[in-house]
């Protein structure tokens, strides 16, 4: 099946089995390795991307549903050389340890800040449910608040 979509602003067309997980297409066909495979069960969030602005777990998303949609991966979060506030905050707070799960967290956070620009701790607990085996949650919470502040400052 041929599926066409926009990914990080670039138009792409792939010819794959309709039920292929979008994560496979992103990593193995389009060679965008930033989005990670974690559990394959939509449980850990390592594969979180944006589809039409909404956070989606790419491992549980059949590519056929992506037809005509706009996809953003971690590679497309910054605008040119300008880092996204989430990326900037992640660096300032030195969040990652091993780093594997972080792209998923950052994409989930970027989606959250679009919906709730100044999230409370409760908002963070309710919306960011990804899994980090290094348990960087404490630094992530600080980074999420920092990202919200940067976003506010740059408006």
């Amino acid at each position: 099946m041929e599926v066409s979509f926009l990914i990080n602003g670039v138009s792409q067309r792939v010819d794959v089995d309709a039920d292929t997980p979008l994560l496979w297409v992103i990593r193995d066909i389009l060679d965008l390795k930033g989005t990670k495979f974690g559990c394959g069960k939509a449980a850990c969030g390592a594969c979180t991307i944006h589809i039409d602005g909404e956070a989606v777990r790419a491992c549980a998303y059949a590519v056929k549903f992506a037809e005509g949609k706009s996809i953003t991966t971690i590679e497309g979060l910054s605008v040119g050389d300008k880092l996204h506030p989430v990326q900037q905050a992640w660096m300032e707070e030195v969040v990652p340890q091993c780093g594997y799960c972080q792209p998923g967290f950052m994409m989930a956070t970027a989606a959250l800040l679009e919906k709730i620009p100044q999230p409370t701790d409760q908002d963070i607990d309710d919306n960011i449910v990804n899994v980090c085996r290094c348990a960087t949650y404490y630094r992530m919470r600080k980074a999420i608040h920092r990202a919200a502040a940067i976003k506010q400052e740059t408006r």
Partner: protein
Amino acid sequence: MIIPERSRWFPVLILLLVGGLLGLSAPENRSNSQIEVIPQSATPLDGMQAFDQVMQVLTHKRCVNCHPAGDRPRQGEDSHYHNFGVQRGKGNHGVAALTCNTCHQAENNNYAGVPGAPDWSLAPRSMAWEGLSRVEIAQSILDPARNGGRTLAQTVSHLTEHELVLWAWDPGVDANGIPREKPPVSKVDFIKAVRAWAAAGAPIPAK
């Protein structure tokens, strides 16, 4: 001995016919369900028989898990609270950046074990069935104040045509590849029972 062409095929046709009949008579619901599908009579159901069959479905976990009493969906065969602290959210589609569609799409994903159907969402709070008796559920679904303002005809359509309701008979597999349990009444018999119940005036037993 030369067997005439028609006679040679006759035993094969008999076998196919018998096999086909056996196949047709097998219950539709045959996943890993521990619950035996109840064979239904060919005779028309009266209102109370129909009520009984409808309620066998509406009280099943495939329905009640997403008709919770509170703001947290349930999941699985043991109806545990949905993993990850998933919540109802303002529009019954989850919270701002963790909506149902973060994981659930328009159809089951049997690779990931994530169920899906069009309009995947929680039933509104007014349609909470968890903890209700069969009589209370029936009263609820007939009450426009709690059923989304539906008439009886619209309720029949919802129960017999809505893809999210009918997903109960195509629930896919879980994250371990194990088929989810289907309701104990087949889809065909449920639809017949809903229509028969409504045609009889949607009677509700005293208890």
